[in-house]
């Protein structure tokens, strides 16, 4: 779609007076783009529109036909609900901590995998395994590993004398969110590493060669050459992860269900929509989540554009 649109735009700029041929090509371009636009409107636009519409009604899951328009009531109630703010706060904590850890670890792994050594291809593939396992499966697996009575994590920590009695990882309010973050970091660091590795391989070799000739210390090379050059790739990777982390659902839901200590915005919306059948109110929560993520994207795009103009 984008290629066709760009082609159309380019032609419009080049020739203000449209020839017959150009007009024909524009028509064809639209013809090719239309199916995609229709599909997008159906699978993305329509559900989004319906969710936003429901958020202004008192719709109930048992009978969606009798919904009445209630204006901003749902939003007013939502913003005054401490449980919603608890969910927002949990999500923000989760996103900030997990993405920071994933970025640092992912960068380290990417740098290691970028070096030349035997079996590099095999290692790169092996690193991706946690990312390849379906989240529900790995969440359940970690749930058992974190079990307070027969979990292997407690067993190992006790054997190493790091803890004196088992920790109830997923149950205790102090550690529940920590456990979720650990699993997310385990799962998503490979993804981060792969994105950054791709960025690293695009970097020009000349800078490194001249640095080598000048005998610059590797740490300085990292801070002065690698990091600045990698910044665009790093920013893309971070924004991807932040957007993903803001709508976290499966991992948290499998590991601790509707527990308020770990409830994210998505878990909150689902509980309202499905458990409580309150489609109107749940849609308001889902819409607000959508707006938060959209706002995030806009801020990021603006910032990155400003940065480029400098």
């Amino acid at each position, binding site marked *: 779609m984008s290629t066709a649109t760009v082609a159309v735009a380019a032609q419009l700029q080049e020739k203000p007076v449209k020839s017959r041929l150009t007009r024909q090509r524009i028509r064809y371009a639209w013809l090719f783009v239309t199916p995609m636009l229709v599909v997008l409107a159906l699978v993305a636009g329509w559900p989004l529109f319906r969710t936003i519409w429901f958020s202004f009604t008192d719709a109930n899951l048992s009978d969606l036909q009798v919904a009445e328009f209630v204006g901003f009531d749902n939003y007013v109630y939502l913003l005054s609900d401490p449980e919603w703010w608890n969910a927002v706060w949990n999500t923000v904590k989760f996103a900030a901590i997990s993405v920071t850890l994933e970025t640092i670890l992912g960068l380290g792994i990417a740098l290691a995998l970028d070096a030349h050594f035997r079996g590099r291809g095999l290692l790169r593939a092996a690193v991706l395994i946690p990312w390849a396992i379906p989240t529900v499966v790995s969440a359940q697996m970690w749930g058992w590993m974190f079990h307070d009575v027969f979990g292997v994590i407690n067993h190992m920590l006790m054997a190493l004398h790091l803890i004196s009695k*088992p920790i*109830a990882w*997923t*149950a205790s*309010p102090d550690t529940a969110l920590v456990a979720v973050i650990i699993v997310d970091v385990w799962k998503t660091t490979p993804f981060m590493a792969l994105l950054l590795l791709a960025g690293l391989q695009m970097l020009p070799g000349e800078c490194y060669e001249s640095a080598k000739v000048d005998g610059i210390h590797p740490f300085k090379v990292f801070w002065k050459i690698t990091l600045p050059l990698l910044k665009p790739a790093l920013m893309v990777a971070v924004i991807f992860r932040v957007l993903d982390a803001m709508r976290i659902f499966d991992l948290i839901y499998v590991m601790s269900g509707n527990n*308020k200590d770990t409830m994210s915005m998505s878990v909150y919306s689902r509980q309202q929509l*499905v*458990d*409580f*059948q309150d489609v109107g109110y749940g849609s308001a929560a889902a819409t607000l989540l959508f707006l938060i993520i959209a706002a995030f994207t806009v801020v990021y795009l603006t910032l990155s554009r400003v940065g480029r103009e400098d």
Partner: protein
Amino acid sequence: MGVVWKGMAALAVTVAASIGGAQAATISISCGAVGQELQLCTDGANAWAKATGNEIKIVSTPNSATERLALYQQILAAGSADIDVYQIDVIWPGTLANHMIDLSEYIDEETVGQHFKAIIDNNTVDDKLVAMPWYTDGGVLYYRKDLLEKYNKQPPTTWQELTDTAKEIQDGERAAGNDKMWGFVFQAKAYEGLTCDALEWVDSFGGGTIVDADGKITINNEKAAAALTMARGWIGTIAPEGVLNYTEEESRGVFQSGNAVFMRNWPYAWALGNAPDSTISGKIGVSALPKGGADGKPTGVLGGWQLAVSSYSENPEIAADLVKYLTSAEEQKRRAIQGSYNPTIEALYKDQEVLTAVPFFGSLYETFVNAVARPSKVTATKYNQASSEFFNAAHDVLSGKAEAPARLAELESKLDRLSRGGRW
């Protein structure tokens, strides 16, 4: 022409084979999968299929009741015919009544009359028999007979006795080398199961049933607060902190691997705990849940599952016949003996074979009959929210995030807002 004749002959055979003249069909039934539920359900449904010439499709569902209801509601809200027969919880008839057929049109009064009247009443919404009782449940206390004998203890009759006994045996066993030993396990994850457990504690202290029969919110009282404070005291002392994330099966895992003295669970755990591959086979005793204090009462929350036929089913008559078969005395007896599932037919509690397999069906008969019901009838469609508010409050107290009296006052105001002043 030959093909057509063959086809018609086959059709005639099928029609003749099916009962009541209805055509053979594929009926899909949702079965729970807690313990050996799925196996028993599959066997029973297949036996019916074999006898009637119909086919069965088993749909297995999530273990957590909260999640199961959510799944059903999505399927039913879409008007889907994917599932014909639903296994529904004792608290759901009110919520799901609109989506289910009236079974009294297909099942005669005499058959219905064999079942406990209280459950039939519970399953009747606006004169419509929404579901047939399949098995009933009551929370019971499991204990390790061998350990109680070893320490010369009696099964506890009050929670205080339970706490003391659990502590003593737990400490003794740990000193003897089993450092994984705990005194008491139950269900305290933030889900419907915690509503059951916490309601039992509150009820045993005489603290009411959260909302009374008239819709008045009664939970904010001293007895309820005392009950929750007592339970808070167990966490980390006689109960592992992990119970805060346990459902039925996690607690059974700990108890059945020999790592707990007491367990609160439903009767299904009896058959599994006494199975040949169980480490504690033959070492289990069962009693009613203890009293809150000298003036409290032994308790147990009413549970149990029903079978209902979806009104979107393409073969309601055949589906109703399956329900009739599965809830029959014969099938309930098989389930009682093999899986220790409580029958809903009174006569089976006097059946010698049933009592030999599950002795406590006789000794705890009164507990099952007088089990305390969750306030699902009066709260109707808002039950899920009310229950969620209650289990969240209980979870907050258990995990030490709030003190019981203050949290119950907060719960009262939340329920008040939810019910618009108790009108529900």
